[in-house]
């Protein structure tokens, strides 16, 4: 619902063309503006340690938002992102705790996540059900299944391999985790897929006009299936990153991941109507959310007021983006 219904096409269309493939400058400017304000408010904000913390805090939602972007570009929506990711942590955790090989366990759990994506995609493309309902249903099913599997409780996952993504390394004075690097690698790969391959072109085409895509001979259903499948795979990798950050498999974790990831996508300038937007915007969108939360705490804002300020700033962020586009 980002393609603003009331705007005459003349105002947006010229820029839309540029957004596809080319990073949208709007969200980036907003990110920099917020960063500047927070840096002025509290010099600690720019401490390398703090910046690296923000990146780490962005890892999970940032990664899940990659899959969410793909789904939203096809004019779908995924409410099961968090649940699928948690499924991954619990399965990997259970297997390792039962003595299986960590790498195999993780691989299997990524496979299960991919299968969950496949199931969603199958219902959506095969039975032509609305993505909202299918992923909502899967969310309910998984929520229950996760609690049943883990017998209701969270359990710690103490394994070198599963926790590896949380290990840090120094990159020129900057401390990052392997998880952060992996997230960037994922962004780069999926960006390539979206912008440099046929597959990505067809994602945009389907989101733009499923009927046109069908008529020119794009196998729309199979393609949708592949999108949800890839998204599921990404959520599986997200599970590994989540275990690196929190070595704990908790059936109740990530409850707000669906809304959070959609928020990152929308702040990043991708339209909920599909076919318009891009992945770099999403990364920036996820960072904006992380920067807001961190910056407001550093500014010493009471947590009660933080929600309020965040609410205002999210609107301001998108308004600024919108404004920069109209001028652009």
């Amino acid at each position, binding site marked *: 619902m980002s393609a603003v219904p009331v705007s005459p096409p003349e105002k947006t269309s010229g820029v839309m063309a540029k957004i596809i493939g080319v990073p949208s400058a709007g969200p980036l400017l907003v990110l920099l503006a917020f960063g500047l304000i927070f840096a002025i408010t509290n010099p*600690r904000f720019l*401490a390398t*340690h703090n910046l690296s913390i923000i990146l780490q*805090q962005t890892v999970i939602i940032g990664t899940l938002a990659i899959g969410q972007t793909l789904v939203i570009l096809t004019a779908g929506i995924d409410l099961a992102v968090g649940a699928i990711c948690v499924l991954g942590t619990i399965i990997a955790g259970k297997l390792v705790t039962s003595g299986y090989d960590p790498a195999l366990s993780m691989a299997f759990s990524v496979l299960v996540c991919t299968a969950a994506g496949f199931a969603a995609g199958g219902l959506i493309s095969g039975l032509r059900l609305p993505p909202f309902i299918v992923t909502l249903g899967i969310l309910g099913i998984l929520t229950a299944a996760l609690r049943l599997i883990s017998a209701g409780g*969270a359990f710690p996952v103490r394994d070198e391999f599963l926790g590896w993504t949380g290990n840090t390394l120094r990159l020129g004075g900057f401390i990052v985790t392997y998880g952060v690097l992996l997230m960037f690698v994922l962004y780069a790969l999926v960006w390539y897929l979206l912008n440099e391959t046929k597959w990505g072109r067809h994602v945009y085409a389907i989101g733009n006009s499923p009927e046109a895509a069908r008529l020119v001979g794009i196998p729309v259903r199979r393609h949708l299936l592949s999108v949800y499948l890839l998204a599921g795979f990404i959520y599986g990798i997200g599970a590994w990153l989540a275990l690196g950050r*929190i070595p*704990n498999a908790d059936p109740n*974790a990530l409850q707000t991941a669906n809304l959070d990831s959609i928020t990152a996508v929308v702040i990043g300038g991708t339209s909920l109507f599909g076919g318009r937007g891009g992945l770099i915007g999403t990364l920036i969108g996820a960072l904006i959310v992380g920067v807001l*939360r961190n910056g407001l*705490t550093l500014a010493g804002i009471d947590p009660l007021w933080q929600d309020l300020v965040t609410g205002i700033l999210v609107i301001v962020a998108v308004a600024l983006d919108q404004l920069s586009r109209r001028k652009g």
Partner: protein
Amino acid sequence: AVSFAFTGQASAEDVIVGLVTKTEVNPFFVKMRQAAEAQAKEKGAKLIARAGKFDGDNEGQVAAIEDLISAGAKGILLTPNNSSGMLNIIKKARDAGVLVIALDTATDPADAVDATFATDNFEAGVQQGAYARKALGDKTPIVAMLDGTPGGTVDTFRHDGYLKGFGIAEGDPAIAGAAITNGAQDKGQIGMENLLSKNGDINAVYTINEPAAAGAYAALKSFGKEADVMLTSIDGGCAGVRDVKDGKIAATVMQFPYKMAAMGVDAVVEYAATGKKPSGFVNTGSFLITDKPVDGIESKDTAWGLKNCWGD
């Protein structure tokens, strides 16, 4: 008004015990439900459990009680989200001849229900705070508050209790900042990280529960501060007690959801059989668990804690 409540001599198999917890999200309530299930099975009763969807889901709890009355429950065990919201429906249930017992959280007024089996959460908070203050010794305290959900009854009791036990008031400059964790580990971690970025001298951390404490510990560790900070919590889940044993959490205050649940189920079964109702407030107790006891504060060690903890 009692047309739909089956009275008379019901055999034990017919007894339906309703359990309405706050959420399915919190392991505390999950364990409570599991304990109630086990107890009901043992007593040959049938347990139907329901929960709100989130902290504060009054509507969900009201609907659950209504459905349980419809289902013919003999008694309902309730951990009210917000007791004032439940008063009407509790009255309706009791008018229909259903025994209503509050678990974990008392209602306001307390005599709205037949009986209350609960911990005193304020007292538990005081225990946590008093220990933390004492254990800090003569260091100047700089406190971070990792709260649950603002406005929740239990959340407020624990928070206020901690401050009382710690000997400071709301707004004291010793409080370096607060974060909302919703009792979740990931949000606990993020909140702690950001608070540490803001003030690296924090040396005491209040946590609403053990998952939040686990998140806080991870953050402290990544800042290399895990040894210098007095991290305390409340709950008494086995995972939490293990964290105390491992030295991650300095102390936690144990509560007894199993006991509350089992007592509740027993009372309903008894009521079904004999018509006898329990009454009043039964404090199921809370104990400070730590391996580093301090003078003047009663505590038990983790060996005892692991024997009596809930979960696993």
